[in-house]
């Protein structure tokens, strides 16, 4: 295990000084301006509820699955939403397999809070039989490549996966109406989830010299920055969550500035997510109509990609 420490990646002093000095003239090492987001690309897999988001060099995969379970005792009429974050060792040489570390748990909490506290996903529509059967939605976030700002990318992946997920339709049956019959997708069309709004997480990095602020830090900037803050806002201007985890102190006016910036960015990101989901839904509908053998179907898909 000591061998692993010897393999950990460290930024050199020269690199750190270069990043800090460049920021004094509002230049970032990848050529962006301080308040510019990296390019976001959202792709979907073959199945419903699987998304892959690329934010610059950061890559995150989201998978949504659902299961029928008993609800919690104190909430018999609500479905269950749970988020599992996997910091895969392929993302970064310092990520270890096994139990999630502090960063993974924090990321999971931020995404979870954004969705749950703001009631973005309607959990009451997931109830089939109060007190007995509800749908438990499980979101698995796999971090594939750590290029910095994992929270934002993971959040977008979770939202994209939730928007394209379809749960099987079920109805009550049996002698006393207490049994739940789950219909397979070939017989009855599966239903999408009810998502009221999209909470977008936007992260900021603070640097110690002259309170410099950047949006969407890369992993080089993350190694240099003095503090970070993640704000979750939606396109309507509602603040869903704020997380500032340690690091240096930040004055009030800077926090207000961050919130304003976040709200303006959230609108464009929400539009991007919705456009990508539209394209996927159209493709999905077309696939349902064409009943070609798989080999022809694949050609169609490759051309569209």
């Amino acid at each position, binding site marked *: 295990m000591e061998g692993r420490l010897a393999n950990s990646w460290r930024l050199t002093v020269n690199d750190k000084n270069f990043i800090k000095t460049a920021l004094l003239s509002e230049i970032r090492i990848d050529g962006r301006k301080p308040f510019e987001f990296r390019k976001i690309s959202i792709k979907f*897999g*073959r199945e419903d509820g699987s998304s892959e988001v690329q934010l610059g060099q950061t890559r995150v995969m989201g998978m949504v*699955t659902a299961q029928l379970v008993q609800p919690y005792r104190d909430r018999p009429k609500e479905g269950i939403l749970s988020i599992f974050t996997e910091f895969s060792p*392929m993302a970064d040489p310092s990520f270890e397999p096994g139990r999630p570390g502090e960063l993974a748990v924090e990321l999971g909490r931020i995404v979870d809070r954004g969705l749950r506290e703001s009631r973005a996903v309607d959990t009451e529509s997931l109830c089939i039989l109060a007190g007995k059967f509800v749908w438990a939605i499980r979101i698995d976030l796999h971090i594939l490549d750590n290029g910095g700002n994992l929270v934002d990318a993971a959040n977008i992946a979770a939202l994209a996966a939730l928007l394209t997920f379809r749960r099987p339709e079920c109805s009550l049956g049996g002698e006393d109406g207490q049994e739940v019959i789950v219909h397979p997708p070939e017989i009855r069309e599966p239903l999408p989830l009810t998502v009221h709004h999209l909470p977008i997480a936007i992260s900021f990095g603070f640097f110690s010299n002259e309170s410099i602020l950047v949006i969407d830090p890369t992993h080089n900037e993350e190694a240099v920055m003095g503090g970070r803050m993640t704000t979750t806002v939606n396109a309507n201007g509602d603040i869903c969550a704020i997380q500032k985890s340690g690091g240096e102190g930040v004055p009030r006016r800077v926090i207000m500035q961050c919130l304003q910036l976040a709200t303006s960015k959230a609108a464009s990101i929400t539009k991007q997510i919705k456009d990508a989901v539209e394209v996927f839904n159209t493709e999905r509908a077309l696939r349902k109509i064409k009943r070609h*053998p798989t*080999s022809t179907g*694949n050609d169609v898909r490759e051309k569209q990609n």
Partner: protein
Amino acid sequence: MEVDREDGRSQNQLRPLACSRNILHRAHGSASWSQGDTKVLAAVYGPKAGTKKNENPEKACIEVIWKPKTGQIGKPEKEYEMILKRTLESVCILTVNPNTTTSIIVQVVNDDGALLPSAINAACMALVDAGIPMKHLAVAICCCVAKSGYVILDPTKLEEQKMKAFAYLVFPNSVHSVLPEGSLRVEGEPIENGIITSVTHVDDYFYCLERGRAASVKLSDFLRRNLQQQSTDSSKAG
């Protein structure tokens, strides 16, 4: 005997293959392999200093981490890890970098049948992308035997469930002769470590082996073309 497969393929036809290398930025080597709808992503980090406790320090060590699409890591994942590890250990030249560990991380993106052979192919391409010294490429293929006795290659998940037995076969890639005749010769024995069979008759197994070997020639051509194409692309910095 003629067989009707659901997607219109013949008995010996493989699904469309797609492969891309160098897709991740932090990993030393990465590859994505898809056979039809089955898609697997593999990343390689290495060689790193030191070996684990029970491993031989005179040789390089290979560590495999299998990540399923969803759910906890259980016994099937550990089994896949062990099979992949043994297969890749027989393919890599372990004496070049002694006392080092190479980690291979396999992530299942979608499972539609023939998952383990796709993973072996993806891991092999990722190792090539990372520049880990290997004796030859590993070409993996899945053959199944149905209850009525016919053998099909590269099943989908639905087909797999109806089969009586399946064999995952790993072959070294075909050798192109350097001599002017330029004939293709398939050399060597299949690597025993990559074979898993369920209850099957010996004759069926040898039949599978023949079919698999023939198909592996096609697969290794595909691999070779893919590797040659990308190596002539402009090099990426960093």
